[in-house]
């Protein structure tokens, strides 16, 4: 009895996570269109990667853990979901770092509008190499 309740709870938490991921992906796409600058769009892309990628994968793993009719296959699906989520969290920021740094160094996009740009200031002072 107790295990059934826990099973159901985990199942619905997983469903909520998957559903939330879909909504966040949609909102990230809207944000991609509404933000008018490359750097601002990177923030919307982060929502797509973490909110729309990490959480649904965790939810998928939780759902598959509760499905008894899948037999031992459920551990297989859950394991792949969890490890993919783990590596997504490790590797997604690397792409953002590379894009942001490369764009700033090469001056392809001016980070406009901007309140203050400490990196540009320090580069002009010669404190860090360009």
């Amino acid at each position: 009895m107790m295990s059934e309740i826990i099973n159901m709870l985990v199942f619905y938490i997983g469903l909520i996570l998957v559903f939330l991921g879909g909504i966040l992906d949609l909102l990230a796409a809207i944000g991609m269109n509404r933000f008018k600058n490359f750097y601002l769009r990177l923030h919307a892309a982060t929502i797509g990667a973490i909110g729309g990628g990490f959480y649904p994968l965790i939810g998928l793993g939780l759902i598959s853990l509760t499905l008894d009719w899948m037999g031992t296959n459920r551990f297989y699906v859950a394991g792949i979901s969890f490890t993919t989520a783990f590596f997504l969290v490790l590797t997604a920021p690397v792409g953002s770092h590379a894009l942001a740094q490369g764009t700033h160094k090469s001056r392809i996009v001016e980070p406009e509008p901007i309140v203050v740009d400490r990196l540009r200031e320090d580069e002009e002072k010669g404190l860090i190499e360009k």
Partner: protein
Amino acid sequence: MKRIRAILGLMIPLIILYIVYTGSFNLFELILGIITAIVVGYLFGDVVVEKTSKVLDPVRWFWLVIYAVFYFTVIEAKAHWEVLKLIFNPSGIKPAIVRVPYNVSTDYALTTIANSITNTPGTITVDVDEKRKYLYVHWIKAVDVSDKVAKENISALFEKYAHKIFD
């Protein structure tokens, strides 16, 4: 002895990762995982593991788990909510590239801080100055551009945990 402990320090996480990934507890999978982990641990153990006493320290693993749970529930939820509000009200944005000082010594801790900053929507690490110990962070809603306040708002919490886990 040090080398064996370095190999063990890389081997154990790799075996756990392999077993979680395959999701089966056959003897075959277990032996294959152990052999692969030994080979990888032998090749890269002393490159990946700098100090063996840190890897086999359960207190650090405990803080890692605490940090992971706290980060992916509370911190991420707050940051997502902030940026979602900005998507529907783009006039509220106030972007700035601020300087955030950090005070950790190992590369792992620095990577943890930089990745944590980038993984929260609203802040992205643009560059790092390892000599003067500064991170340059693009912040979508800069409440204050001074180094100290920026650090309190962005990375003070990450640094506290990164210090406990990796330093």
